[in-house]
C-alpha cells in the first residue's frame, strides 16, 4: 500500500461519497432542511432590494400563497443580480425597476410574454413611485428649495464636492441596481461621462462613494457620512425613522420609478409566474399596494399602476 495507490483510493472515495451525498440530498426533499411545505408548487422570485426592504413583498407573499396554494420563495437582489438569476433560470420571475436593463433582458430573448388584460407583453408594469434626492439638513451643496432640476442638483453636488469633499459627499449604490441605473442616467443627462468624470474623478477627489450594497445599507452609509444620495421614495420612508437625512428634491420627470415584473424564459414555473403578473394587476391587490404603509408613514410608499404613467398594456 505504498506510492500512488492510497491517492487513487482516496480520490475515488471522495468522488463516490460526494456523488452519493449530492444525489441523496437532491432526491430526498425531506433532507432539505427547513422550508414551508405549502402545496407542491414553488415559485422563485428575485426582487429588487428597494421593493423588499419596504416590507411590501412580505405583505403580499402570504396573500399570493393562499390564493394560489404555492410556496413563493423571494430573494432580494439588486436589479442587475436579479436579472442575472433570471437569465440562467435560477428564478422563475423577476420584479425590477430599470427600463434600460429590462429592455436588454427582453432583447436577449430571456423573457416570456405574459398575458395581461388580453394583451401579450414581456414587461408588465404594476406600480410606480418617485426617486428622491436626500441629504443632510444643512444642505452644503445648496440643492434644496425646489428651484433645481435633478440634473442641475447633480451638477451642483459634483462642483461643490470637487471643491470641498469633506463637506459635500454623494453615496452611490454602485451595484448595477435599478437605482444605480437611474443615477447613471441622471449624471449622463447632466452632461457627464459617468465612468470618467464621476466614478473616476469623483472617487479620486473623495466626494463620490460607492457602497455596492442595497438601498437600506446605502441610506445608512449616507446617514453616517452626512452625504447626499439618490433613493426610491418607498425605502426612504420606511427607513426615515432611523435617519437624519431629509428630502431635498422630489420633482422632475427624470425621477419617475416604474416597477415591473418579467417572466423568465429559462424559469421552471411559467404558469405560476403568469399568475403572479395577474395577481399584481388585480384591482383588489392594486388597492392593497396603494394603501401599503399609509397607516405607518402617513404617505403611500407606492402608487398603483397608471396607464398614463407606466404605459400600456
Amino acid at each position, binding site marked *: 500500500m505504498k506510492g500512488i495507490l492510497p491517492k487513487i483510493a482516496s480520490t475515488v472515495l471522495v468522488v463516490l*461519497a460526494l456523488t452519493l*451525498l449530492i444525489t441523496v440530498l437532491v432526491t430526498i426533499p425531506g433532507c432539505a432542511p427547513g422550508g414551508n411545505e405549502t402545496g407542491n408548487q414553488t415559485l422563485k422570485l428575485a426582487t429588487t432590494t428597494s421593493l423588499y426592504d419596504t416590507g411590501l413583498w412580505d405583505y403580499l407573499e402570504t396573500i399570493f400563497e393562499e390564493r394560489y396554494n404555492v410556496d413563493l420563495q423571494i430573494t432580494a437582489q439588486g436589479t442587475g443580480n436579479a436579472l442575472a438569476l433570471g437569465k440562467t433560470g435560477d428564478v422563475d420571475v423577476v420584479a425590477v425597476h430599470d427600463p434600460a436593463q429590462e429592455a436588454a433582458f427582453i432583447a436577449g430573448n430571456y423573457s416570456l410574454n405574459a398575458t395581461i388584460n388580453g394583451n401579450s407583453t414581456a414587461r408588465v408594469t404594476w406600480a410606480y413611485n418617485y426617486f428622491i434626492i436626500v441629504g443632510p439638513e444643512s444642505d452644503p451643496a445648496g440643492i434644496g428649495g425646489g428651484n433645481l432640476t435633478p440634473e442641475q442638483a447633480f451638477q451642483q453636488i459634483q462642483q461643490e464636492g470637487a471643491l470641498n469633499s469633506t463637506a459635500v459627499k454623494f453615496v452611490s449604490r454602485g451595484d448595477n441596481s435599478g437605482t444605480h441605473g437611474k443615477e447613471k442616467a441622471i449624471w449622463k443627462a447632466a452632461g457627464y461621462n459617468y465612468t470618467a468624470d464621476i466614478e473616476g474623478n469623483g472617487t479620486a477627489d473623495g466626494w463620490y462613494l460607492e457602497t455596492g*450594497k442595497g438601498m437600506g445599507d446605502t441610506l445608512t452609509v449616507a446617514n453616517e457620512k452626512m452625504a447626499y444620495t439618490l433613493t426610491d421614495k418607498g425605502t426612504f420612508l420606511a427607513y426615515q425613522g432611523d435617519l437624519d437625512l431629509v428630502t431635498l428634491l422630489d420633482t422632475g420627470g427624470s425621477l419617475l420609478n416604474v416597477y415591473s415584473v418579467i417572466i423568465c424564459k429559462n424559469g*421552471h414555473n411559467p404558469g405560476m409566474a403568469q399568475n403572479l403578473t395577474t395577481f399584481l394587476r388585480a384591482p383588489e391587490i392594486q388597492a392593497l399596494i396603494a394603501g401599503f404603509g399609509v397607516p405607518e408613514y402617513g404617505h403611500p410608499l407606492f402608487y398603483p399602476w397608471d396607464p398614463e404613467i407606466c404605459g400600456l398594456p
Partner: protein
Amino acid sequence: MTEIWHAFTKAIELIISLDPEVMEIAGRSLRISGTSCFLASLICLPLGSLIYSHHFRGKRVLINIIQTLFSMPTVLVGLLVFVLFSRAGPLGFFGILLTPTAMVIGQMILITPLLLGLTISALSGVSKETVDTATSLGASGFQTVWLVLREARYAVLAAVIMGFGRAISEVGCAMMVGGNIRGFTRVITTTISMETSKGDFELAMALGIILLFLALIINIVLNRLQQR
C-alpha cells in the same frame, strides 16, 4: 446608548417568549449546519485516517495545502458553489441554487479542510508507542487505524465541533447560494446582516445572542473534552 439598551431588552424578550420567528430561524441554522457538519464528518474522518495511516510522496505538501485551506474565505466557497450549481453551470441540472441543499454543500466544502486537517493532527497526537505496540502484537493496518481513532476520539470530536462552529457562523456563502429567502434559506447570520441593514436591531440582536450562546455551549463541551 438608550437605543442599544432598548434593542437589547427587546432581544431578550424575543428569546424568553420563544418568538416563533426567532426559533424558526435558529432551528434552520442548526439543521443546515448540523447536516453539513455530519456529512462532512462522514467524508473527512475516514479520509483523514487514510491520509494519516499511509506514507506517500507529497503527503507533507497535501497536509500543507489542507492547512492553507483552513482560512478559505467563505465568499470564495459561495462563488464556487454559485457558478457550479447555477442553472447555466456544469451542475445546474440539479436545480439546487437558492435552496438549503446548496447551503449544506457550500458549508461542507468550507469545513472539509478544517475537519481533514484537524483529524490528521488529532491522530498524529496519539503516542508512537501505542501504534508500535499494536503493530508488534500483530494488528492489521485497519485495526491499528481503528485503535488510533479510538485513542484520539476526544480530539477528533473537538475537530467536528470546530467544523460545526465555522459552518453555523459563516454568512458569505449562506447569503450567496441561499439567497436569504424567508422561511426557506434564511438563517441566523443572514438575518442579522439583513436586519442590521434595515436598522431593525432587536431581531438581529436576539439572533446574535442565540449564536453566541451556541458558541458558548460548544466551547464548554470542547473544554470538557480537552480536560479528559
